[in-house]
């Protein structure tokens, strides 16, 4: 189909069912940034330097909860090499405190630099900049902070108890019902039908309690930035982030300057997974730079990353599900308590809304509690809240299948959400691919492969909403017919390759002829953070539209040259062509020929697209896991793993598979060994990778992937986001596999060897 026949609907972003043949989309070329990354040429957060640069260090609270009585910076300021010291007094003082999420800007400021109280072990209380990193480190030790230690709480259930120490009175918003400790700051409730009558119809009702510990995204690159801010209020910031416009907005507010006066450039990024959607050190470096009038570099240690960035929420959950003998779910109810540290924002509503989304339920009810504790402010971690909900819900469904002697995939197929199903969280689903993932899982050789003694198999489904968001893209043609594509979403998963493939598809020029740049904040309109699995969907949609805008302009130049109407020109394989005999006999004109003359034929040829696309299709996955448990030590090995997920349309299948495998790998760590361990003193016990146990390569099996493609109606090629859904099923699928292998139900994450051994002993003792 020639592009000039394309009839845009509602802004031209809907799926085009006739576009089924692709030249570039669906191929697997090397990523444009690959060579830079494997040779060390790529510049990450800590790789940038500036003349006259200072190095900074942050003083952090050793207490979980303490009133800051006094900060004496005089000894540090007197030290040779020290050029600036900042405390809370050096940040904006006009940001109002408000309850709930209404005061998020105040929450960010309070987290970046403590005010009256230190709220968790690792909370920043002061910072210093000096001429070397060692001097900054020594100077930080000379800053004397006097604390009045207060009672603390780090566990979600304990924080909800009536007598728990209150983290910050006045924080709860109006959603919270009467009668809760003030640490319960937000409340969510949703669902439909009548669960009590649903449970009455069931042949078997199972109610159970589950807990998950907080985990960290574990990105390999610690946060790092280089900041320069003058007394004229003009600034430059280089930093490692998933979204530099967000950094611009937050930092400008926190240091009290105009947004546009701060230009932010995103470095290459060594992993984010949601954890780099916030600011931690950037405002501090800017404040130090303004005070010293010198560029300031600030790089976190791994220990600082664990103590003071944003891990995921920990949870305490109650699930009740009723099922008939034939596998029909009659009712489902869930209570989800999430602690997200010393600030509101734990994603209790996402947890509640995702929990039962895979199933078409007549009767469903879910509530969520956002609870504050003396821990670091949680940040997004890949489908925030959904993996924990799936762990609890899918464990109960597994137990129901076991007790009713039903096949776990058949039961899920029987209850699966489909197009038109009223979702557990409200709306009716458009076209979705859950059934297709279940059918593919059932047909996969893994599902019928025999198990060895000591092994068990687990299944789980998972759901994530996906997101669109503010997006702007510019595509500029060069005189030689190659193209420069500027996008504003940092590349956290191979997105430059995907953008280049989509632009190549529309322009009809080779993939290699497109240079994709992550533009700085001064070079494009606002772009929302790379989160919500939105980049291939939203920046991809914008890239397609910007390319189509470019093609319209290219065709106009050819039409003008030929002296015919531009509607009589169509675009094919990089050439403008007259659309038929009536248009006239003209030699097709190649893009390079049009661009070579663009200066003289009307000026530069540049395509744009700016929008907030809202058609991000939701996504489902089904995972199959085989685990082996050593009954004498409780040690678990994941021996086989298969991910089946709906991608809508895989633009670059290798990077889609990479996302699938990455979600499984992170899920294995979260399920088996990763956890935030707090001591009685409220201090984090394991703030290095030695004791925060993410999987090493030899811990993982080869992870098989199946890409299911059920087109998203809201994208021209049918793309759905894939980055987050892949981490929704693993916790549950692994827990179900481990429970089958061990012969005992595991209800708490991580399923570390001592927990498994304890569960085995409990089972043996009846």
């Amino acid at each position: 189909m020639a592009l000039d026949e394309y009839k845009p609907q509602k802004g031209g972003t809907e799926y085009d069912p006739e576009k089924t043949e692709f030249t570039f989309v669906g191929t697997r070329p090397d990523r444009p940034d690959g060579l830079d990354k494997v040779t060390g040429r790529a510049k990450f957060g800590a790789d940038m330097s500036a003349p006259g640069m200072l190095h900074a260090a942050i003083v952090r609270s050793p207490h979980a909860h303490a009133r800051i009585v006094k900060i004496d910076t005089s000894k540090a300021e007197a030290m040779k090499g020290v050029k600036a010291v900042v405390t809370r007094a050096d940040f904006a003082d006009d940001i109002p405190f408000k309850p709930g999420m209404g005061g998020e800007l105040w929450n960010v400021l309070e987290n970046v630099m403590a005010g009256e109280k230190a709220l968790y072990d690792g909370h920043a209380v002061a910072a210093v900049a000096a001429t070397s990193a060692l001097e900054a480190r020594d100077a930080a030790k000379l800053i004397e902070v006097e604390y009045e230690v207060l009672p603390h709480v780090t566990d979600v259930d304990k924080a909800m108890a009536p007598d728990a120490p209150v983290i910050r009175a006045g924080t709860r918003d109006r959603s919270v019902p009467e009668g809760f400790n003030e640490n319960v700051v937000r409340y969510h409730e949703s669902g439909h039908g009548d669960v009590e009558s649903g449970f009455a119809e069931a042949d078997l009702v199972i109610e159970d309690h589950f807990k998950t510990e907080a985990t960290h995204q574990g990105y390999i690159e610690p946060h790092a930035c280089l900041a320069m801010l003058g007394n004229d209020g003009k600034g430059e910031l280089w930093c490692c982030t998933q979204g530099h416009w967000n950094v611009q907005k937050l930092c400008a507010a926190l240091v009290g300057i105009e947004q546009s006066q701060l230009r932010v450039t995103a470095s290459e990024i060594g992993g984010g997974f949601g954890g780099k959607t916030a600011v931690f050190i950037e405002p501090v470096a800017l404040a130090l730079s303004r005070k010293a009038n010198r560029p300031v570099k600030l790089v976190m240690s791994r220990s600082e990353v664990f103590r003071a960035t944003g891990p995921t929420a920990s949870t305490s959950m109650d699930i009740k599900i009723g099922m008939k003998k034939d596998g029909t779910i009659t009712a489902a109810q869930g209570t989800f308590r999430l602690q997200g540290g010393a600030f509101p924002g734990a994603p209790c509503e996402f947890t509640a809304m995702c929990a039962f989304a895979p199933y078409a339920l007549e009767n469903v009810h879910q509530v969520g509690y956002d609870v504050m504790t003396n821990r670091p402010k949680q940040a997004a971690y890949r489908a925030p809240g959904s993996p924990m909900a799936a762990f609890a819900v899918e464990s109960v469904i597994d137990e129901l299948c076991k007790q009713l002697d039903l096949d776990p995939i058949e039961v899920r197929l029987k209850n699966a959400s489909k197009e038109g199903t009223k979702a557990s969280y409200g709306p009716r689903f458009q076209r979705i691919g859950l059934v297709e993932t279940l059918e593919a899982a059932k047909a996969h050789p893994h599902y019928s492969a025999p198990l060895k003694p000591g092994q068990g198999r687990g299944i789980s489904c998972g759901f994530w909403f996906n997101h669109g968001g503010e997006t702007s893209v510019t595509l500029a043609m060069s005189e030689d017919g190659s193209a420069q594509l500027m996008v504003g979403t940092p590349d956290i998963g191979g997105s430059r390759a995907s953008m280049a493939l989509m632009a190549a598809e529309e322009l009809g020029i080779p993939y290699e002829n497109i240079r994709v740049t992550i533009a700085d904040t001064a070079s494009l309109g606002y772009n929302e953070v790379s989160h919500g699995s939105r980049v291939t969907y939203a920046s991809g949609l914008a890239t397609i539209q910007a390319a189509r805008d470019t093609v319209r302009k290219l065709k106009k130049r050819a039409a003008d040259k030929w002296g015919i109407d531009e509607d009589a020109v169509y675009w094919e394989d990089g050439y403008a062509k007259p659309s038929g005999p009536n248009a006239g006999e003209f030699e097709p004109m190649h893009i390079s020929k049009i661009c070579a003359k663009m200066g003289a034929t009307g000026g530069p040829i540049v395509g744009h697209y700016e929008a907030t696309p809202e058609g991000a299709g939701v996504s489902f996955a089904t995972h199959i896991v085989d685990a082996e448990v050593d009954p004498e030590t409780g040690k678990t090995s994941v021996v086989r793993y298969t991910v089946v997920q709906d991608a809508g349309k895989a633009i670059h299948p290798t990077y889609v598979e990479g996302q699938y495998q990455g979600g499984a790998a992170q899920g294995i760590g979260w399920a088996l060994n990763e956890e935030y361990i707090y001591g009685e003193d409220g201090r984090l016990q394991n703030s290095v990778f030695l004791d925060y146990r993410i999987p090493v390569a030899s811990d993982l099996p080869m992870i098989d992937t199946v890409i299911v493609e059920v087109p998203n109606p809201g994208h021209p090629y049918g793309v759905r986001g894939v980055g987050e859904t892949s981490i929704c099923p693993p916790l549950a699928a692994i827990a179900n596999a481990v429970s089958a292998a061990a012969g005992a139900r595991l209800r708490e994450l991580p399923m570390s060897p001592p927990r498994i051994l304890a569960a085995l002993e409990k089972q043996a003792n009846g």
Partner: protein
Amino acid sequence: MKYHKPQDFDEASRLAAGAKGATRFLAGGTDVLVQMRADVFTPDEIIDLKHIPGVKDITRRADGGWTIGIAVSGAEMSEHADLHAEWPGLVEAMDLIGSTQVQGRATLVGNLCNASPAADSVPAMIAAGVTVTVTGPNGSREVAVEDIPTGPGKTALARGELISAVNIPARGDHGGDAYERFIPRTEMDIAVVGVGINLRLDGDTVTEARVGLGAVAPTALLVQEAADAIIGTTLDDAALDKLAAATSAACKPINDKRGTVEFRTHVAGVLARRVALTAYKRAKG
């Protein structure tokens, strides 16, 4: 900070005896340098032992045993075919420490003097009956490995004393050793429990045995009761049960981020069984 590069152990000893402030000896540096970088501990004086002649040598002694230089790395031990063939448990225990990069630097003496209760090479050395030569202001003495650590981070070495050699006994006939540790992952981790066993057979009967136990007490332990449980047996199920019970009974662990008291005590017995069977198989040849 002062950096010294002595040319012999007597000079190193004199430097240490005369040092002002906190001193660290440097061999592989995989503890010292890491602690400095992480701002855990910064010494006032560093005495670098790597330039003393002979410290990188693995030498066969006249009695058939081995002398390991104090700067010999784990990787050099692993690639020494004869040493590996005679003492697979000890060499493999050393090889479990850290990554490939760390193996290129890490040393037995560093692992011993860092005095972590969880040091992998220490229970294996204890089981093997390894001694170290200690050089100090009053000359040299030979000390059993189990007598070096006195608590977490603490050793029996006096001011001005340092270890100048590691002495592995002659393997002899019909002997075998093995070491296993429990970690929740597959590598790059710290032992939650570690068990080293070295034994000798006469026919099918165990005639000599030593059991070293790590990560379950303030120091690695030599567990005589566990050895006694298998000496005189053919390592039948009853003997293995006694071995496991004696090993678990010797544990005095703590609850910490790496494991609970109950878990460590139980798994110590489980590992003792497994390690004894491996050592037995190796002794049978």
